[in-house]
C-alpha cells in the first residue's frame, strides 16, 4: 500500500475529494497546514508598520491506497488540484507497511 500526501490549495479540496471518490477512495484525512514555498505570502499593515505574513494556508490531504490504484489517484489529484499558478503544491508518496481499520481489525487492502 501507499500513503499519498498532497499539499494543495485549500479551495481545491472539494474537487480533489470528488475526484478521488470517483476512483473509489472512500476515506481521506485532511489537515490545515501552513505552506512556505516559492509562492509568497501577502503583506499586512498594522498601525503604520508593514509586515509579511509569509506562509500560505494549504490543505494537506492524506490517503492510504492500494498499490494498484496509487498512480491513478496521483493522476487524479494532479489533474484537479492544478491551476497552473505557482503554489499548486506537492504530492509525496511513501510506502505503507500496514493499514488497519480500528473498528473491525481488518488490515491491508480491506482497511482503506
Amino acid at each position: 500500500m501507499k500513503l499519498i500526501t498532497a499539499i494543495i490549495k485549500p479551495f481545491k479540496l472539494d474537487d480533489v475529494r470528488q475526484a478521488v471518490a470517483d476512483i473509489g477512495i472512500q476515506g481521506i484525512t485532511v489537515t490545515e497546514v501552513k505552506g512556505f514555498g516559492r509562492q509568497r505570502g501577502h503583506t499586512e499593515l498594522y498601525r503604520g508598520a508593514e509586515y509579511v505574513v509569509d506562509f500560505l494556508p494549504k490543505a494537506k490531504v492524506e490517503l492510504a491506497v492500494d498499490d494498484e490504484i496509487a498512480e491513478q489517484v496521483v493522476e487524479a489529484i494532479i489533474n484537479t488540484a492544478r491551476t497552473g499558478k505557482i503554489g499548486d503544491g506537492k504530492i509525496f508518496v511513501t510506502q505503507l507497511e500496514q493499514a488497519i481499520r480500528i473498528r473491525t481489525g481488518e488490515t491491508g487492502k480491506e482497511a482503506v
Partner: protein
Amino acid sequence: MEELATQVTGISYALDTFYFLVMGALVMWMAAGFTMLESGLVRSKNTAEILTKNVGLYSIACIMYMLCGYSIMYPGGDFQGGYFNALANISILTGSDNDAAAVADGSYYSGLSDFFFQVVFVATAMSIVSGAVAERMKLYSFFVFAIVLTGFIYPIQGFWKWGDGWLNVGNGDVGFLDFAGSGVVHMTGAAAALAGVILLGARKGKYGKDGQVQPIPGANLPLATIGTLILWLGWFGFNGGSQLQVTGIENANAVALIFVNTNMAAAGGLVAAMLLSRIWFGKADLTMILNGALAGLVAITAEPLTPQPLEATLIGVVGGLLVVASIVFLDKLKIDDPVGAISVHGVVGAWGLLAVPLTNDDASMVWQLIGLGSIFAWVFVTSFAVWFVVKATMGIRVSDEEEYEGLDIGECGLEAYPEFVTTDS
C-alpha cells in the same frame, strides 16, 4: 411669581431637551448595534472591513447631515419649495439656539438637541445598507454612496414627511403617518440597499449552479446577538424620542406606552420567528430569531402609540413571521443579503406602514400606500442611479481574488482575528 414661571419654563425646557438628548444617545448606540450585528453575520475574513464600513458611515452621515442634510430636511419657515434653497438654512453651523423669547414663543427644547436626535437617524438608515452589501463591495465606493444618501437622498424624502412637505398630515387632506420612521428611515435604508445589491450581485458561491442556496454562515453569533440587543435598547430612544416631548401628563404617558409597545413588539417578533423557524426548519435558527426581534421593532416603528400593548405584540408577531418568509423568498430570487437587512427593514418596514390604519384612524390605507410607494420609488431610483454611476466609474465590486482572500486584507490591510485559526471558507 413671574420669576417662578421663568424657572418653571427653564425646567420644562431642560427636561424636554434632556429627554431628547438621552433618547438621541440611545439611537447613537444603535450604530454599535448594527456594527456588531453585521460583524457577527459575515465571515471572519471580511470582519475588519465591515467594522470599518460601519464606523466610517456613521461619521460620514454625521458630517454630511451637518453640512447640508439637516437644512434640506428641515428648511424651516424660509423654505419656498425649492430643495436646494434649503442649503442656505445652515444655522446649525453657527450653533445658535433658542433664546428666552423663542421659548416663550413655544420652542420647548433645544434646536441642537433636535439636530442630535435627527443625525443619528440618518446614520441608522445608512447602517442598513452596509449589511446588505457586505462581503463584496469596495470600501470607498460604499463611502461615496454614503455621502450621497446621507447628504441628499435621505433628507429629501425626510422633508416630504417630517420636514412638513407634501406627505405630511395637515397639508391638505394627507393621511400618511409614519411616527418614527418605518418608512422614512427603515424602508429608505432597505430600498437603497436593494438597489445596491441588484447592481452588485451575490457573493461568490452563495447560489449553486442549479440555483440552490449554499449557506455562508456568519462567523460570530455572540456578536450578532449583542448587536441585536443593542438595537433593541436603542430603539427605545428611536421610538420613544419621536414623541419629541415628555413634559405634561399626556406626553409622559405617551412615551411610557411607546416604550412598552416597542418592547412587546420585539418580544412578539422574536417568539413568532422562533416558532416559525421551529416548525418550518425543525430547529431554532438563532439568526432568524434575532431578525424576528428586529422585525418586531421595525413593524411597530410606524405607529408605536395608538396600539394597546397586546396589539403591539401582534404587530410584532406578523413582522416576525414576515421576515422569516421574506429571507427565504429573497434567496429564491438570488438577492443575496448576508444579514437580512432588506427583509427586516424593507419588507417589514412596509408592513409597519400598512399596519398604521389598523389602530390609528387618522391614517388612511390609500395614503399609506402613496407614502410607501413614493418613498420607495424615490430612494430606489436615485440610489440605483448613484450606484450605477459609481459602478461605471470607480467600480463597486472587489476582484474575485480579493473576495476569496477576504476584504480585510484587501481593504484594511489587516485581519480581524489574526491569531485565531479558521477554516478556509
